[in-house]
């Protein structure tokens, strides 16, 4: 089932700060279920995720793989679980802010939190739920000697502005959708554009493959069979790379390289927010799943406590208990009466089933 996803209009820069009860960092299964549990106790949520879709690893790493240990669902795929969670949280109309990473998190004088994403979107929130799984998905960095020195000047893992690549001699490494999409998009502005890939098959949309091969045929772009094994240049300015192919190694001149080798998970800025960490995971208590900073919670694979199991079902449990504690923060004067969705008319009203 395809769900409509509402995204903020922050793609082209900052809009006004968004004020909310809760910001959930991540949009994987545990983040989605946290929307449900928080929604039941009247807490509104905004979710921020680096990926371009909800579902986290379930949607990005294994959308078609069956999961067998979700209670009550003997078999469900990663995408299937994501779709069902999206359906389940629909009554609470959470807002998704995708393609963004939270870079800053700080506490304000009034006790609330201020978050800023890499796109400049600002949030002011009473509580934060870190549900960032294995961390944020970041482009894989090829383990080439000295590549760090070229990053940002000659080596780029993404394209924010096509115009920045005008008149460059570009080498795109990889054979997936990102590699081909950007090859096609950058070709018109590039001085010269070459795709280098280890084989002559491409794991990309057939239409992109056909268009790319047509441009290679017509001489608008070049294709090389091989793998980049070394970078050459000075002061961050790439001059050439070494390409290893079946026939041996050769030097290839270019001033810009875009490697597209998929994504990997890195803890990222979470490490800089002053939270107590244990082996790169966020320490929480097992009553509220609160971190060392009051008002900041962590659920799912990113947290750590004695006996922790990195299971989706454990994250669901954590989200339920976290929400009870969250209610005390948002509604300090209200007594929270424990209720069942099977019988509570007020919960059923929230779920839109009454």
């Amino acid at each position, binding site marked *: 089932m395809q769900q409509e996803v509402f995204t903020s209009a922050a793609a082209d820069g900052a809009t006004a700060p968004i004020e909310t009860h809760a910001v959930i960092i991540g949009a994987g299964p545990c983040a989605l279920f946290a929307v449900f549990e928080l929604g039941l106790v009247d807490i509104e949520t905004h979710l921020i995720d680096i990926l371009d879709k909800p579902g986290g*690893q379930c949607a990005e*790493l*294994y959308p078609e*793989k069956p999961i067998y240990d979700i209670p009550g669902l003997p078999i469900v795929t990663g995408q299937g679980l994501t779709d069902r969670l999206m359906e389940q949280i629909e009554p609470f109309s959470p807002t998704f802010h995708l393609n963004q990473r939270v870079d800053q998190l700080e506490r304000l004088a009034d006790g609330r939190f201020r978050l800023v994403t890499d796109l400049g979107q600002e949030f002011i929130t009473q509580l934060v739920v870190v549900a960032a799984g*294995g961390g944020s998905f970041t482009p*894989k*960095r*090829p*383990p080439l000697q000295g590549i760090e020195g070229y990053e940002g000047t000659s080596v780029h893992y993404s394209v924010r502005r096509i115009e920045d690549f005008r008149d460059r001699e570009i080498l795109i490494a*990889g*054979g*997936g959708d990102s590699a081909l999409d950007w090859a096609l998009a950058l070709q018109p502005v590039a001085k010269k554009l070459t795709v280098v*890939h*280890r*084989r002559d*098959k491409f*794991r990309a949309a057939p239409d992109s493959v056909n268009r790319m091969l047509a441009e290679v045929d017509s001489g608008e772009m070049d294709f090389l069979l091989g*793998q980049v*094994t070394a970078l050459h240049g000075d002061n961050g300015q790439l001059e050439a790379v070494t390409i290893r192919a079946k026939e041996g190694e050769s030097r290839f001149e270019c001033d810009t390289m875009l490697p597209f*080798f*998929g994504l*990997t*998970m890195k803890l990222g800025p979470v490490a800089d927010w002053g939270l107590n960490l244990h082996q790169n995971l966020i320490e929480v208590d097992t009553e509220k799943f609160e971190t060392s900073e009051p008002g900041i919670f962590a659920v799912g694979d990113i947290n750590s406590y004695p006996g922790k199991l990195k299971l989706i079902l454990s994250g669901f449990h954590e989200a339920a208990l976290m929400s009870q504690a969250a209610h005390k923060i948002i509604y300090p004067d209200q007594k929270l009466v424990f209720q069942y969705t099977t019988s509570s008319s007020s919960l059923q009203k929230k779920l839109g089933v009454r």
Partner: protein
Amino acid sequence: MAKITFIEHSGAEHTVEVEPGMTVMESAIKNDVPGIEAECGGACACATCHVYVEDAWRAATGAPEEMEEDMLDFAFEVRESSRLSCQIKVTDALDGLVVRVPEKQF
């Protein structure tokens, strides 16, 4: 039980005993063999359990299927002998298998 030997880039060897039916990746993780990361846990979705199969064993382990071949695009220094170890299922016929662990997974 089948014996599998992992040779690190440094040359260090690790021989582990594996129950047939497990994958080569699982046997590495279970025995803490360095250099096999298996970030995605065996879903053929990350290419961080990349190994080179020794020539003598390439016929027995077979060739990668299409999905694995696709995922190898995301590995580094891919060679003819490259496989993702999560996609090699251990059988009695693989008793004695030798694989090399690349210098880096990425």
